[in-house]
C-alpha cells in the first residue's frame, strides 16, 4: 500500500487518454506532473482497432461546411444529440486533424500531396480523413510517439483501477492494482480524466477487444456518478462472421455492396437515397430484417449472415485502401475479398452512452472529467455516425486535458485522500474477492451474460425480452457472489482482474437492460418492436442511471436543442 502523488491522473491510454496527456503537457509547458494509469500496455488500447476514418471539415472550398457536418451528426443521432456540444465538436475538429498530421500521422493522400477524404455512412460530404483502413492504429501510434516528447508524463502500465476516491463531491484520486506486483496503490491527484472506452464486451458477437469491459463506467457508476443513455448500443453492420472482427464502414464508403442470398442490393428497400451509406443503425436493422425474413445465408451456429461485396472495386484500390480487412478475411475466413464477398452480420460496436458530462466533458464531480467513448457528452445521441468516435476522442481529449490542467494548476495543495476508503477497497479486493471459494466459474457467468445480452438486448428489443434479461442479470449477479477464484497468487493475477471486470460488466449490463426497458420508443440504435415509432413528445430526453444497491435508479434530463427541431429521419 503506497500513496503516489500526481497533479493529473488520466485513466486509460486510448486515443482520448493520450490526447489529453499530450494536451496537458503542452498546455502547462511540461510543468504538470501527469500520470496515465492503464490496465493494458500503453499501446494496446482498443482504439487501435478503429479502421474507417476521422471526420472533419477540411474542404470548405469544395462545398463542405460546419453547418452541414453538424446537421449530419444531429440527424444521425436521431435528434438526441446535444446541439451545443455538436457545434463545439465540429468546429474544433479540423485543427485536430491537421495537428495530427503535423505530429506525423500518415493520412492517405491525394496525388497532389494533400490529405484525402473518403465518403462515410450518414455524411453528406466525403469528409472522413483516413489512413488506409487502420486509422485508429495510425492515430494511436502517432499520439503515443508524440507523447514521448514530454518527460513529465509517467505511464503506469498494467494498473487496474478499482475505485474512484471522491469526498464531498470532489475528486481526490483513485485506487489501482499494480498487476506486476499485485499490490493495491492509491494515486492522489488534483484532477482526473477518465478515458477508459466503451463497454461492448458484454455482448457476445462484437467488434470490441477483449479488454473493453467498461471499467471506467462501472467504477464511476458505483462511485455515484450517473450514467447517461446507456440503452443506446451501436451495432456495426459489418462484423466478420464468425469472429466478429470489424470490417470497416470504409469498405462501403469506397463503394462496396451489401447483398442478400438472392444477390440483391437490399439496402434500396430501406434507404433508397444513401443505400449502403445510410447510418449504422439503419443498415444494421436492414441486415437483421433480411436475416430474420430468411434472405440471409444460414450458418449452423446461428450466426446467419449477408454478403459484403467489394470485389468490383478492383485489386489496386483494395490493396491500397482496404488492406487490413483483406488480411482479416483471408486469415480468419480464407476468403480473399478481391475475388469473393465477405460474410458479415451486425456486431456490437459502440456505447453511445456513458458517464454523464456537460458540454465540455466535465462530470458532476469537481475535478473529474471524462473523455472519449466512456463519456456521454452527448454528441452521438441515439446513434453515432461512423468516423465521429475517433473524432470525439481527439476533441474531448484536448478539451478535458486543457480544462483539467487549468484546474490542477489552480489548486495549490493536495487534499488528503480518505484513508479508510482505500483500506476498505483493499480489503474488498484482496480479502473478499480474492478469497472467494464458491462453486461457480466466473468466466462461465461472463459467457452466459454475453450470450444473454446478444439474445435479449440486441438490435430488436421487446418488453418481455428486456424484462427477462433484467431478471436474468439479477440472477447472474447473485450467482456471481458464489464464485471461486482459483489463482491466489499476487503476481500478475489475471484471474482476479478478470473477476473484477466481470463485476463491472454485470453492473453495466443491468443499467443497459433497465434503461432500455424504460424507454418505450424507438430512437436511433434503440429499437423496440413494441414501440416502433420515435416519440418526441415523451422521450426527447436523456436517461440518467444512478447507482443504488438494489439496482439502477433512472432519471431524465432534457436535450439541449439550439439549432434544429426534430424532423422525420429519412435517408
Amino acid at each position: 500500500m503506497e500513496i503516489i502523488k500526481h497533479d493529473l491522473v488520466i485513466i486509460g491510454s486510448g486515443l482520448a487518454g493520450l490526447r489529453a496527456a499530450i494536451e496537458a503537457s503542452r498546455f502547462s509547458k511540461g510543468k504538470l506532473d501527469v500520470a496515465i494509469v492503464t490496465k493494458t500496455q500503453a499501446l494496446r488500447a482498443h482504439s487501435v482497432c478503429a479502421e474507417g476514418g476521422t471526420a472533419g471539415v477540411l474542404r470548405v472550398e469544395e462545398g463542405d461546411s460546419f453547418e452541414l457536418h453538424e446537421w449530419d451528426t444531429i440527424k444521425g443521432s436521431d435528434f438526441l444529440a446535444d446541439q451545443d456540444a455538436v457545434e463545439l465538436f465540429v468546429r474544433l475538429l479540423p485543427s485536430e486533424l491537421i495537428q495530427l498530421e503535423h505530429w506525423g500521422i500518415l493520412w492517405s493522400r491525394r496525388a497532389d500531396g494533400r490529405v484525402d477524404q473518403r465518403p462515410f455512412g450518414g455524411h453528406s460530404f466525403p469528409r472522413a480523413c483516413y489512413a488506409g483502413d487502420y486509422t485508429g492504429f495510425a492515430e494511436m501510434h502517432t499520439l503515443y510517439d508524440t507523447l514521448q516528447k514530454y518527460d513529465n508524463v509517467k505511464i503506469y502500465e498494467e494498473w487496474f483501477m478499482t475505485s474512484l476516491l471522491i469526498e464531498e463531491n470532489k475528486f481526490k484520486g483513485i485506487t489501482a492494482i499494480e498487476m506486476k506486483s499485485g499490490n493495491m496503490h492509491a494515486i492522489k491527484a488534483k484532477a482526473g480524466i477518465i478515458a477508459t472506452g466503451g463497454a461492448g464486451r458484454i455482448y457476445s458477437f462484437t467488434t470490441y477487444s477483449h479488454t473493453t469491459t467498461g471499467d471506467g463506467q462501472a467504477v464511476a457508476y458505483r462511485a455515484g456518478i450517473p450514467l447517461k443513455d446507456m440503452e443506446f448500443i451501436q451495432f456495426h453492420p459489418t462484423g466478420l462472421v464468425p469472429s466478429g472482427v470489424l470490417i470497416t464502414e470504409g469498405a462501403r464508403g469506397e463503394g462496396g455492396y451489401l447483398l442478400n442470398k438472392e444477390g440483391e442490393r437490399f439496402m434500396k428497400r430501406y434507404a433508397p437515397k444513401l443505400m449502403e451509406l445510410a447510418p449504422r443503425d439503419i443498415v444494421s436493422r436492414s441486415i437483421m430484417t433480411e436475416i430474420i425474413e430468411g434472405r440471409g445465408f444460414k450458418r449452423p451456429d446461428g450466426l446467419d449472415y449477408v454478403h459484403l461485396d467489394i470485389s468490383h472495386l478492383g485489386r489496386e484500390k483494395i490493396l491500397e485502401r482496404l488492406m487490413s480487412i483483406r488480411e482479416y478475411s483471408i486469415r480468419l475466413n480464407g476468403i480473399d475479398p478481391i475475388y469473393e464477398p465477405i460474410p458479415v452480420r451486425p456486431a456490437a460496436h459502440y456505447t453511445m452512452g456513458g458517464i454523464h458530462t456537460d458540454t465540455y466533458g466535465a462530470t458532476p464531480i469537481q475535478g473529474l472529467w471524462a473523455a472519449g467513448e466512456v463519456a456521454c457528452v452527448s454528441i452521438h445521441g441515439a446513434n453515432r455516425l461512423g468516423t465521429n468516435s475517433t473524432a470525439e476522442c481527439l476533441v474531448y481529449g484536448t478539451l478535458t486535458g486543457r480544462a483539467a490542467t487549468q484546474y490542477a494548476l489552480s489548486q495549490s495543495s493536495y487534499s488528503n485522500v480518505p484513508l479508510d476508503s482505500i483500506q476498505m477497497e483493499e480489503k474488498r479486493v484482496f480479502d473478499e474477492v480474492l478469497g472467494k471459494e464458491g462453486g461457480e466459474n466466473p468466466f462461465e457467468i461472463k459467457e452466459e451474460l454475453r450470450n444473454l445480452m446478444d439474445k435479449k438486448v440486441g438490435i430488436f428489443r421487446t418488453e418481455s425480452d428486456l424484462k427477462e434479461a433484467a431478471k436474468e442479470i439479477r440472477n447472474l449477479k447473485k450467482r456471481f457472489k458464489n464464485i471461486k477464484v482459483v489463482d491466489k497468487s499476487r503476481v500478475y493475477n489475471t484471474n482476479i482482474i478478470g473477476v473484477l471486470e466481470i463485476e463491472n460488466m454485470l453492473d453495466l449490463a443491468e443499467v443497459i437492460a433497465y434503461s432500455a426497458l424504460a424507454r418505450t420508443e424507438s430512437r436511433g440504435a434503440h429499437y423496440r418492436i413494441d414501440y416502433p415509432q420515435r416519440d418526441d413528445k415523451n422521450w426527447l430526453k436523456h436517461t440518467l442511471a444512478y447507482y443504488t444497491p438494489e439496482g439502477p435508479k433512472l432519471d431524465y434530463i432534457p436535450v439541449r436543442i439550439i439549432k434544429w427541431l426534430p424532423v422525420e429521419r429519412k435517408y
Partner: protein
Amino acid sequence: MSITETKKHAVASYPKRYNLERYMFFIQRATGIFLVSYFYIHIFIYNQRIDAALWASIKTAFGNPTMYPMSFIFVTAIMIHGANGLRLILTQLGFFIGKPKLPVYPYPPSSIGKAERVILFILISVAIILIIVALGEFLFFIR
C-alpha cells in the same frame, strides 16, 4: 510466413524454423572466430621466418600432411565467410534488398526476398565451387 497463393484463396502456413539468413549469421560468426584465431597464429608463426634454424623446425611441424585438413578447413572457412560477407556488404549498402513499398498480405519481406536469396545462392555456389577445387587439390596432393 510463407504463403501458397492460388487464384482465389491465400492460405497462410507458418514457418517451422527460422530463415536461411539467420543460420548464415551463426556460420559467419563461427567462421569469423575461427579465422581470427587462425590469423593471429599465422602471423606469429610466419614472422619467425628470419631465423633459418627456427624456420626449418616450424616447417617440419606445420608442413607435414597431418596439417592439410587444417588448411582445408581454413580455405573452406575463408570462402564461406568471404562469400557471405560480400552479400552482407552489398545489402548493408542497400543493394538487393528492395525498396519500401505498400505491404500486401501475406507480407513477404523484400529484404530477405528473391533478389537477396539469388545473390546469396550465387555467392555461396561460387564459394562451394572454389572449396571443391581446393578439396581436389588437397586430395591430389595427399595421393
